[in-house]
């Protein structure tokens, strides 16, 4: 692996960039591994990396049915934040944010984590109460999040319309300065490259078709489109396709998969300095390094794996964006796309063991999985290595749907992501 640096870039440039090596080898499946990760998104690749890096399990394969980073990793709006209400959530997401910091250096791959600040708007008295509850809880949890007046919000994000006559006037905002964005593809590639350097096999175009289990019920391996592979440990990190994989182990899950759309504008010169989210108006936006306004749209209302959303969702999203940021009404939508988001009943993830021995799961991140990428990867790795959850992800177990110990951020605050 070539160490990435300005010097290596310079040196290779003189050679016409002819001798850059593969970032990760295109591995063929071996007959057996110590651990298998199903799903080559950021979470799964991260888990493989941390298994090898932190827990000494290097004989690992990541099985990806398409190309790595091609699911929600490459289809999201790249928002990173940890200003969640409940202790459990705040700790979970802040674990990830701490890993984001320094990830570029750790992976020797610039993931372009940009702490541009994430500002969440309050449009009515209920929003104010709810977001102030967040700010207070975060402060006592050591998670940065501060309250801004409308004018302070506008100072931080000048395109914001704070007219009191707006249909949804801005009454204030909660700002997490450490929040921001990162370059989604780079995260997947960076983990893949670093994991491969530690011995992990990254196997693309390899769909899991069955999970093999022994007489005691424990997992023994998988069947794939590229042949059987033996293993005692399987970590499923398959986002929208988790239900389908889990059914191979006979498990029905508390999950539903919905289409989620996002879109970008044509690129323009820097105009939008941060990330702004409005749950009341259902819109969130940032500007990418390339100059595109990156906008999250809503989910469609029905279960679907089509990665194809409806036009009226886009209409409503852009109407909302144009009301909050009226200077952008003449901007133009360049590209839309759809992802498949897996949603649990309490809209919090499931990260832990399953009733099947040797089968671990990381799913249910809904619209908010990207920000958790390093944390989810690390915690899935921990759980697989120790066969028990880390205290941070222990609350995000499957049992909560039986015993009622839900972690319902949405119900608590009408804040879903």
């Amino acid at each position, binding site marked *: 692996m070539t160490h990435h640096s300005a010097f290596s870039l310079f040196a290779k440039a003189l050679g016409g960039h002819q001798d850059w090596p593969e970032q990760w080898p295109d591995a063929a499946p071996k007959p057996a591994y110590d651990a298998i990760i199903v799903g080559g998104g950021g979470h799964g690749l991260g888990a493989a990396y941390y298994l090898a890096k932190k827990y000494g399990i290097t004989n690992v394969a990541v099985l990806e049915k398409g190309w790595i980073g091609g699911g929600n990793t490459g289809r999201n709006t790249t928002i990173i934040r940890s200003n969640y209400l409940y202790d459990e959530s705040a700790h979970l997401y802040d674990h990830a944010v701490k890993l984001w910091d320094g990830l570029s250096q750790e992976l020797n791959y610039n993931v372009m984590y940009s702490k541009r600040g994430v500002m969440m708007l309050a449009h009515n008295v209920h929003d104010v109460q709810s977001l102030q509850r967040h700010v207070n809880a975060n402060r006592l949890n050591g998670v940065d999040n501060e309250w801004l007046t409308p004018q302070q919000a506008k100072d931080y994000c000048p395109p914001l319309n704070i007219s009191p006559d707006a249909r949804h006037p801005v009454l204030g905002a909660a700002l997490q300065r450490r929040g921001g964005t990162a370059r989604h593809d780079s995260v997947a590639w960076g983990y893949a490259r670093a994991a491969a350097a530690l011995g992990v096999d990254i196997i693309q175009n390899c769909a899991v078709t069955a999970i093999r289990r022994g007489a005691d019920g424990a997992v023994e391996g998988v069947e794939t489109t590229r042949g059987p592979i033996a293993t005692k440990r399987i970590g499923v990190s398959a986002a929208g396709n988790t239900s389908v994989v889990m059914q191979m182990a006979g498990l029905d899950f508390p999950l539903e998969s919905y289409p989620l759309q996002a879109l970008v504008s044509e690129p323009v010169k820097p105009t939008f300095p941060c990330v702004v989210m409005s749950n009341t108006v259902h819109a969130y936006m940032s500007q990418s390094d390339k100059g595109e306004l990156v906008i999250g749209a809503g989910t469609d209302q029905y279960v679907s794996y*089509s990665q194809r959303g409806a036009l009226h969702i886009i209409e409503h999203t852009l109407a909302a964006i144009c009301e909050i940021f009226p200077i952008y009404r003449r901007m133009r939508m360049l590209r839309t796309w759809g992802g498949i988001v897996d949603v649990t009943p309490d809209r919090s993830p499931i990260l832990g063991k399953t009733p099947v021995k040797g089968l671990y799961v990381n799913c249910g991140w809904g619209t908010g999985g990207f920000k958790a990428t390093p944390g989810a990867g690390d915690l899935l790795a921990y759980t697989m290595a120790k066969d028990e959850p880390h205290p941070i992800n222990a609350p995000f177990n499957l049992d909560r749907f039986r015993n009622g110990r839900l972690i319902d951020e949405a119900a608590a605050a009408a804040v879903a992501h």
Partner: protein
Amino acid sequence: MILIHCPYCDEKRPEIEFANAGQAHVARPLDPSSQSDEEWEAYLFIRANPRGRHHERWRHVHGCGRFFNAVRDTVTDKFETTYKAGEPRR
């Protein structure tokens, strides 16, 4: 915006008249108090979420107001059929 055949109105109407109401044929147990925690969890939360043929409920909320059932392919989003509430699973 998909078109949905309402089995009561007997015509295809645009999606924005409808509200999806989740998986179909998840009947509320007749005697909830007799249910174990596992059974109750299954009723409340466990869902099929198939990739392919899916039974789901819709309500023609901005139309005739009725809930009904549908079979739809979740990969193509195409409906196989819709039928009235209370009719047997298709």
